Structure formats: C-alpha cells, structure tokens
C-alpha cells in the first residue's frame, strides 16, 4: 500500500504546531498502525530529521499509552480498538491519513502526538480507591459478591485510562473515565463505605482539572476502546445526586 500521512508536529508545549506531510510507500496491510509509524520514523532518523514523538508501550491494547486522533477519531476507525491494535488492512491503497494528538483543554501537548494526561491520575488520587491498607483484609470468600455485580464491576473496571473519551467529547469531559471507576467500586460491597464520598471528591477533582461538563453526546462511548457502557454515567449521576443530598 502507498499512503500519505499528514502529521501534527509540535516541538514543545509552548511552541506552535503545524501539519507536515510524509509519504509512506511500501506499507504492508498486516502492519499495525504504530509499526507503520516506526517505519516512517526510521526513515526520518536515517536522514537526520527528528522522528515523530508518540506515546506507546505494550502494543497489545491494554496499557493505554497510545493516544492519537486518526482522521479525526481517537484511535482511528476500528471499533473497540486502540491505535496499537489497529492494522493497516483497515485502510485503502492511496489513502491520506491525518494524525493529531488527543485534543482537550486538560491534555496539554508535550511534543508532537504526546499529551499530558496526568489529570486522569489526579482524579483517581481524589478517591478512586478502597481505603484498605496492606494487611487489613479479611478472608476473601467471607463476603460473597453476586456474579452479576462482579461482571458489571468488571465491565467498568476494564477502562485503560487512555483518555479517548475526553478527546472524543465536544466538551472535553472526563465523565466516562470517572464514571467507570465510580461504577467499578460502587458495584462491589468493598466499595460501599466510601461510595458517597468517592463520587463527590472525584467529580470535584474532574471539574478542577479543566475537563468540561457532560451533556450526554455519547461520543465517549463510541470512541472507547474498551466499550465502557454509557450506563456508568447514569450511575455516576445517580450516586452524585444522592451523595449531594445526603451531604447537605
């Protein structure tokens, strides 16, 4: 395959960025998207030009490092697929592909396609855990968890923290990310004692980090590589309302 790439280049957070065009001849349909970029980068390096910086690590769709907009869609056109697992057979010979970093007020660009997503860590830091110090735990089977609850908790817990939901949202909201954690822990008996406090502190942090509000576009779910259900947001709203009323 022969492709043309339009890639966002930006040397640093405070510099101005712009699109550069690169040819990508000899692309194999069996390559992953990142392997295609590797080939482009090796060619740039050989000719003494700075390679395109992008975050990546596990390359099997679970670490959540890769984060790019491909033709305007976070992680590109394949449903429930991270960029690292997107394969070039999804594109056609002769295509022009536009590649940009995730765009959101809360995700400043670090360099080229790399953005700073540490705001997501700070949302977890604000309450996305069960307060149980090492050694405090009771026998694991002492508290049965209905299979259905465990499965729904797991559906939400699969979030890889990539931030695609934020990049897809017209408001730049981190609602799906936050709701996934609120749902994961809220579905389990272990998460109940802190359930009210958790939702309040996490939402408060989300607002402080320049994420926008949720207005139910649902783009986040469409972009989510782990297909976190939109119902988690309903659940967050429910918990938030209840906790706010109880708090007053």
């Amino acid at each position, binding site marked *: 395959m022969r492709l043309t790439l339009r890639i966002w280049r930006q040397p640093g957070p405070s510099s101005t960025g712009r699109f550069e065009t690169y040819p990508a001849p000899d692309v194999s349909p*069996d390559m*992953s998207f990142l*392997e*295609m970029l*590797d080939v482009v980068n*090796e060619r740039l*390096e*050989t000719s*003494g*030009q700075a*390679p395109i*910086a992008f*975050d*990546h*690590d*596990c*390359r*099997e*769709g*679970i*670490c*959540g*490092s890769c984060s790019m907009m491909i033709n305007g869609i976070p992680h590109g056109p*394949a449903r*429930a*697929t991270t960029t690292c*697992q997107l*394969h070039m*057979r999804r594109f056609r010979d002769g295509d022009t592909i536009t590649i940009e970093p995730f765009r959101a007020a809360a995700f400043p660009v*670090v*360099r080229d396609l*790399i953005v*700073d*997503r540490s705001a997501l*860590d700070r949302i*977890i*830091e604000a309450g*996305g*855990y*069960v*307060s*149980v*110090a*090492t050694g405090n*735990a*009771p*026998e*694991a*089977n002492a508290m*049965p*968890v*209905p299979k259905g609850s*465990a499965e729904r*908790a*797991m559906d939400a*817990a699969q979030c*890889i*923290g990539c931030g695609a939901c934020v990049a897809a949202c017209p408001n730049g909201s981190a609602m799906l990310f936050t709701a996934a954690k609120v749902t994961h822990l809220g579905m389990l008996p*272990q*998460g109940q004692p802190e359930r009210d406090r958790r939702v309040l502190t996490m939402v408060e942090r989300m607002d402080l980090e320049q994420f926008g509000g949720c207005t139910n576009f649902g783009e986040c779910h469409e972009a989510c590589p782990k297909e976190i259900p939109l119902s988690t947001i309903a659940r967050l709203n429910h918990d938030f309302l209840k906790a706010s009323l109880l708090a007053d």
Partner: protein
Amino acid sequence: MKLDARIPGGPLDKKWDLHRFEMKLVNPANKRKHTVIVVGSGLAGASAAASLGELGYRVECYCFQDSPRRAHSIAAQGGINAAKNYQNDGDSVDRLFYDTIKGGDFRAREANVYRLAQVSVNIIDQCVAQGVPFAREYGGLLANRSFGGAQVSRTFYARGQTGQQLLLGAYQALERQIAAGTVTMFPRTEMLDLVVVDGQARGIITRDLVSGAVETRLADAVVLATGGYGNVFYLSTNAKGCNVTATFRAWKRGAAFGNPCYTQIHPTCIPVSGDYQSKLTLMSESLRNDGRVWVPKAPRDPRTPGDIPEAERDYYLERKYPSYGNLSPRDIASRAAKEVCDEGRGVGETGLGVYLDFADAIRRLGEDTIRERYGNLFEMYERITGENPYRLPMRIFPAAHYTMGGLWVDYNLMSTVPGLFVLGEANFSDHGANRLGASALMQGLADGYFIIPYTLGDYLATARPAPVDPGHAEVRATEAAVRERVSGLLSVSGTRTVDDFHRALGKIMWQYCGMERNAEGLRRALEEIPALRREFSRDVRVVGTGEELNQSLERAGRVADFLEFAELMCRDALHREESCGGHFRTEHQTPDGEAQRDDERFAYVAAWEYAGEGRDPVLHREPLVFENVHLATRSYK
C-alpha cells in the same frame, strides 16, 4: 564478594514467622525520617511503594511511563496462583511450594519459594478487599481455573485481564498514598544509574524524559522493581519500553546478577508476520484449558485445518505428555512446538506455527461459554491476524516472554549491595529455571505487599544509614558518568538507527541463546555481540539533543545496555553445562529429547560479579540445598 543468602533457621514452614519476629522494627515516629526510593510501578513497585507509604516512610516512586498505571504488569492476562484450596481438590501451601520448585526444575531456593506459597493466600484477600473484580461463581464465591504445571485448580482471574485488575488495585493504593503525601510520584523519569556511597545504595541518577534534566536523588535505601530483560531478544511479549538498564547499571555498581541465562519462551504467542514486526502478542496460557494443540501428521500438509481429518492430526502434547497434556509447563510446550516445526510440520505461511484448536471445546460447552471465558483474547487474535478463532484454529508459536534470572537477592530480597533491594521479575529468586503460569503476579505482589515492608525496616533499623552529602565525590562521579554516557550516544552521528542494532542483537540472541543453546553457538554469539557493540559505538545515529523529549535517545541508552548485558547472558548459558527448565543445552538431553539436569555439578545459583571494564565477570556459586524436597527428574508424562 561473599554470597550470604541469610536463610533463617528452623523448619521450613516456620522460617518466615520466626524471621518476622526476629527482625528489628523502625519506630513509627522514625519512619517518616527515612526516604526510600522505589524504581518501577508495576505490581511489585506499586505494591511496595503503597505499602511502605502506608507504614509512614517517605517514599519516592519513579517510572518511565506517563502514569504508574501503565507499567507492563498491566498486560498479564491469565491469572494469579494462590493456595486457597477453595476447590477442595487437594491444594495446600506445601503443594504450591512443591509445584513451583518442580516447575523451576529444582533451581530455586526452598525457603523463598515456601514463603511465596505461604503469603499467596494473603494476596488474594488483599486484592479482593481493594475491589479487584475477580471472576466469581453463581454463589458469589471466587472462581478458579487451571494453569500449566499443576494438577489442581488454583488460579484466580479477572477475565483475560488479571494483570490489569491487580495492577489497578495496587495503583489505586499508590494513588491513595500520593494523596496522603507519603509517596511522591515521578512519572516520565528514568533511572540511569545507582548511587553507591561507602558500599551502601544511597540513591539513583535519573533523567527527566520531558526536559532531559539529569538529576541525583538520594535516599536511605533503594528498591528496584524494574521488571525483566526479555527485550534483549528484540521481539518479545514485553512492552516496547521494558529494559535492563536499571538492573544492569546496579550490576556494574556491585550487585551480583543471578542466573542471567534463565529465560522463558512462552509457547502461545501470535506468530511473526513480517520484518516490520515490533513486538509479539501473547495468547494467555489459560487458553490451553480448553484449546487443543496440534499439527498435521504429514510434513508440509497444504490442506486447510478443517480439511484434515482427526486421524491425520498429531495432538503432540497429549501424545507425549498424557498426564498433563495441553497443560504441560511452558518450557516443555515451547520446545515441543519447535520440534514439530523443525520436522516441517509447522503451519501457516512461514511454517513457524502450530494450531490451538477450540472446536472440541465449542462443541462441548457452546460458543457462549468460550466467549465468556476468553472473549477478549479471541477478539485480540482476530484484530491482529484478521482470522476468526471461533471458526478456524488459532496459529501460535513460542516467543520470549519472561526472565527468571535477575539481580541476586538474599532471603530479605536485598542484593549484594547493602540497601539495594530487588523485587518481582527484576530479582532471580523464586522461579528457578522456569516459571509456572500465574506465578509472576503472585511473586510481584508477595514481594511488594508482604515481604519488603518487613525486611526493609529491619535493614534501616540495623544499618542506620547516616545522611549523605550531595557533594560527596562518589555521588558526583556517578552523575558525571551518566552525563557522559548520554552525550556520548548523541555524538556518534553514524548512519544506522538504534532499532536496526536492536533487531540485529535480537537475531543473534534468538538464534544462539533462545529456545535451544549449544557451546558452539554460544561461542559464536560471544564473538558477534562485541562486534555489534563496537559497530554501535561507531555507527549509531541518535537524532536531536539531550535537553528535550527524545525517544531515540531513550532507546539508544537501553539498547547500549542490552548490547553489554547480552554477553553476560551467553556467558552464563555457556558455563551451565546442563539443561534445566528454560535453559536447554542440546548437548545435554535424555534419549527422548528431554532436559537433562546435572545436579552433581550445577545445583547452584550462578551469581556473576562485575569485575571492571574489559575484565571477565567473576562467577560466584550459591549452592542450592534441598532439605524438604527430593531432587527428581521432572516428568509430566
């Protein structure tokens, strides 16, 4: 260098209890006066940093990823072992201990492995309390599955994402401590050297991967939880960033390296498809619970799998190892796959693949059950290969996956440098010459949650490290050496990319120090590696500067260390004139092609000491004494 494993006295099942009582404690008010550096934020690092923070130490945690949640433990799929015996199928601490010792081909230390089996049950309790959503039965109790090398069902799992869920549990505990102010997190920061002052580990030199700033970080103790070195093969199941730099640099500062040649080749990975391939993807061992491994009986059979009748298929694992069958341990299953491919019976375009077939299981259990058990793995397979494994058998082939070798540690997980502790895959301690499936997660969390919190306190209370002056000559010299290395890489201005060298190294290692090894090949590797290293220092091209985010520079430093470390691996593999676990020397096999150990000569840990630039490393031996198990020939037949 003197190796003292400091194994406590007393009977095996009492050693840890007695030792815990004998260890000194740090007064709660004094804990916050101690700074502890933890490098790495995977299962071992995150659990250690969180637990030490909870105890009140001042912890600094470093990772090269942009968030601690992205450490490569996240990618572990299948599960975590624990001797809970919930299935009433005869499991016990003793049996998990024995399975692990035997699985490691009798090359691990009894006392460490026994302690691992003991604390395994506490890990499950801890993780459940954190809200890890393990799979459950309809009654609400925890479910188990089987893994290779065991005849009991003791593996706990969260679909095919067990590592992810356990890591998120540890990460959340870590974030809680960050909020509490006990842990300071340094993401996008890479350790490039260890600071040793007056013989004690007193800090690290880091590079900020965004600004490029090289800085010295001092502390009272350093904990390395930096994972394994499987990327020495270039293609492996490891994440792209996984590297040997932290442990290798610690080796050069005096920490002995234990059994570097013990590497694990995982039998079930998606086969290589082209030269551009950047990594190999694992298909969890748990698939072998229901999948059957086979190849055609006839070499180079051109038919599609569905057209090959039962009678013309060779279910070779079931045939050769009837009692364990498809659940034979990893080293054995990998070698068996290589053997049938060497006979020309491999499948797929390259002939380097075998089938993993779910047709029987789908007929027996229905597609829905299989989807519930392995749905995400099947989807991943289809995304990568474009084939539907519900209809066609998967094609799999072995790939480098895990390294049992690592820095040598004593019973307290302390290296030969006082104050330097090593946890998880980065140490050598528990898996001998082969690791059983679902035991890596167990070991990482055992080390971080339940061992280091005790043994680190004992060290600090005993050694009482005095404050160290940042201007100390050894501190400044170490920082200067790092700066020099970084600028050295940038100044070569050659013609070949870093990845090009890495691929070349990987080929040498896979060919001569991979699934099978022999003296002739290893000697050749020991000539080719230094030649490649010389070529690297003459002709590598690293674009850009050191004062910016520079991913080529990051990779260059890691590959430079792999180029040196590879030699140590081959040297260790050459000296070990026996076959054991993942280390298979073709000269040492039984008439039917199984590994032949030599307990008379090699029942020891090989701990290599760095002897200085241009000098051969020095071999030290820690004899392995087996007081509780009988050294048997490992058989899964």
